[in-house]
């Protein structure tokens, strides 16, 4: 419907609805921000409205509390994403281009694993990590997370590589490209959009990972953000100001990530839609 034919009332209703939705989405951030400058007394008296004086020291306490956790989460998310995608691209290249022995069986197993809930294998996973001396280690956590992340990445990337014209690879072979060079010069540029999307999804997934770090990490200085914030709940007699400051600081990295990477995410999804 064009603007000229749309009635003012309809336009007002549409915009009003969008503003209400936006407000609801941003409400938690507003609450966190407002409460982060209060002490408990101000919070009890006026929980939603800004109050004075502003307690800036809450932010220092909050940062000291979650700063290490943020650093751990960044390390885990980046390393997990890198390992996941490196392995998945290599494996998807082989599955997509060549006839692998028992490929159908392997593929069926991957599909079954996609349907299995992660918590169902927590205990055997814990025992496995203990046997491999990967407990209480950030790198160990990354390796296990990367293994789990293979399933979806492999499934998506293999389909993309299968759809690529085989002449690209044949031409590269004739030109003298090795398998690794074909991946670097042909696969990755062609699949850049979907690889970006998978990178974002894996990063966010590793960032928000909770159950596995909860059982695998013991040392407080190695805790990632999700577990650190959870333990923060019981650490204080509910100092709401520093708590909210810590939560707000925790949300900033992902907001920044999305702000800079959303166009890659959308492009990757669009490429997937067109290819599909």
């Amino acid at each position, binding site marked *: 419907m064009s603007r000229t034919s749309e009635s003012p009332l309809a336009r007002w209703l549409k915009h009003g609805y969008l503003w209400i939705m936006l407000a609801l989405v941003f409400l938690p951030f507003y609450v966190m921000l407002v409460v982060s400058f209060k002490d408990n007394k101000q919070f009890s008296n006026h929980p939603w409205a800004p109050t004075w004086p502003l307690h800036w020291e809450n932010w220092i306490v909050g940062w000291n509390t979650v700063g290490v956790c943020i650093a751990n989460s960044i390390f885990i998310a980046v390393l997990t994403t890198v390992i996941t995608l490196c392995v998945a691209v290599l494996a998807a290249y082989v599955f997509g281009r060549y006839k692998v022995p028992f490929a159908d069986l392997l593929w069926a197993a991957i599909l079954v694993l996609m349907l299995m809930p992660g918590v169902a294998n927590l205990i055997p996973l814990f025992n496995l990590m203990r046997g491999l001396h990967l407990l209480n280690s950030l790198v160990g956590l990354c390796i296990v997370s990367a293994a789990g992340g293979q399933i979806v990445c492999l499934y998506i990337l293999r389909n993309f590589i299968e759809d690529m*014209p085989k*002449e690209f690879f*044949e*031409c*590269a072979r*004739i030109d*003298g490209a090795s398998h690794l060079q074909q991946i670097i010069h042909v696969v990755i540029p*062609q699949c850049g959009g979907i690889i970006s999307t998978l990178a974002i999804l894996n990063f966010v997934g590793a960032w928000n990972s909770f159950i596995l770090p909860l059982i695998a990490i013991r040392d407080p200085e190695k805790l990632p953000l999700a577990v650190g914030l959870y333990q923060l709940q019981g650490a204080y007699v509910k100092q709401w100001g520093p708590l909210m400051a810590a939560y707000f600081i925790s949300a900033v990295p992902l907001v920044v990530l999305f702000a800079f990477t959303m166009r890659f995410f959308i492009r990757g999804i669009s490429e997937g839609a067109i290819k599909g």
Partner: protein
Amino acid sequence: MAEVRFEGVSKVYDGGVRAVEKVSLTVEDGSLLVLVGPSGCGKSTTLRMVAGLEDITEGRIYIGGRCVNDVLPKERDIAMVFQNYALYPHMTVYNNMAFGLKLRKYPRAEIDTRVREAAELLEISALLNRRPRELSGGQAQRVAVGRAIVRHPKVFLFDEPLSNLDAKLRVQMRVEIARLHDRLGATMIYVTHDQVEAMTLGSKVAVMKDGFLLQVDAPLGLYNHPASKFVAGFIGSPPMNFLEGTLERDGGTVRFRCQDLILSLPDDIGRAVRDQVGKRVYLGIRPENIHDATLGAGADPGNIKTFHADVVEPLGAETLVYLRGPARGLDVVARFDTRSSPRVNQDVQVAFDMNKAHVFDHQTEESLTYAARYDAGLPA
């Protein structure tokens, strides 16, 4: 440049599908061989075996005297142009052309020189900074050819490079490829299903069917001396007319009879087929060897027959006439001179030039006149 030699080359896929059967032929150094045939005949598979993209099941392939059966594609010193160009969409034209040289770690200056030389040869210098999506079909195909040229390979392989182009562009690119071959003097193997491309491009043409190599000859050799009914019908447009009948003797003359149609064979052809008298055969005659009898030209009166013009297609330089004979199975296509003016649904007196006729065995479909005519150097 180098000679390419096939010795009993076969390709059998998993499951027992025999795509290529014992192909033996030689592509002379500097020549352009065209592999032509219908879809699924094994021509692309044969080409891919030369490139190393398909394993060779039986036989050997030699490039420049070296057996390349176990040699990797990158070490065979060949370059290939694909049907769909295979240009990397994320690279500029320059980088597409330079890609192979960069992989082989050529110095930057030499890469630049080779790319610009090839671009100038193909008249695409102005396109070097464009990406493939900004190119037309013809431009993209030239870039693909340029990517092959910069490698200075021993052998160029073309896998139906013009199939994705429109008819007009195909004609134009055909001429350019022919010019390129003349300029480079390179050994080229060109695969196509289009017999017009085959006839116009190749110094030699190899016709394949169902994995078998049927005949290798110069284009006019195939056209005038086809060794089998399939080759006779595949080469030439409109295709050769085939009439199914029997051979009979009338005194010293051998005649072909198809129902009420009787055509006398000239002495040389009669001698070649005299052992087949009484047997069923196919008589082949090209449209341009069926004339309008009213124009004279010394036709044998015994070979002038009355046909009915069903469809007349005036093409300007010639007229195609679709003729219906006196009985079923006697339909032929004739290529008349522009001086003729046949009318649709009119009876036409047509003269069969039997000096140019071909006779094929009914069972094997091999030419009964091939050896006698070709060896005797008889006129086409």
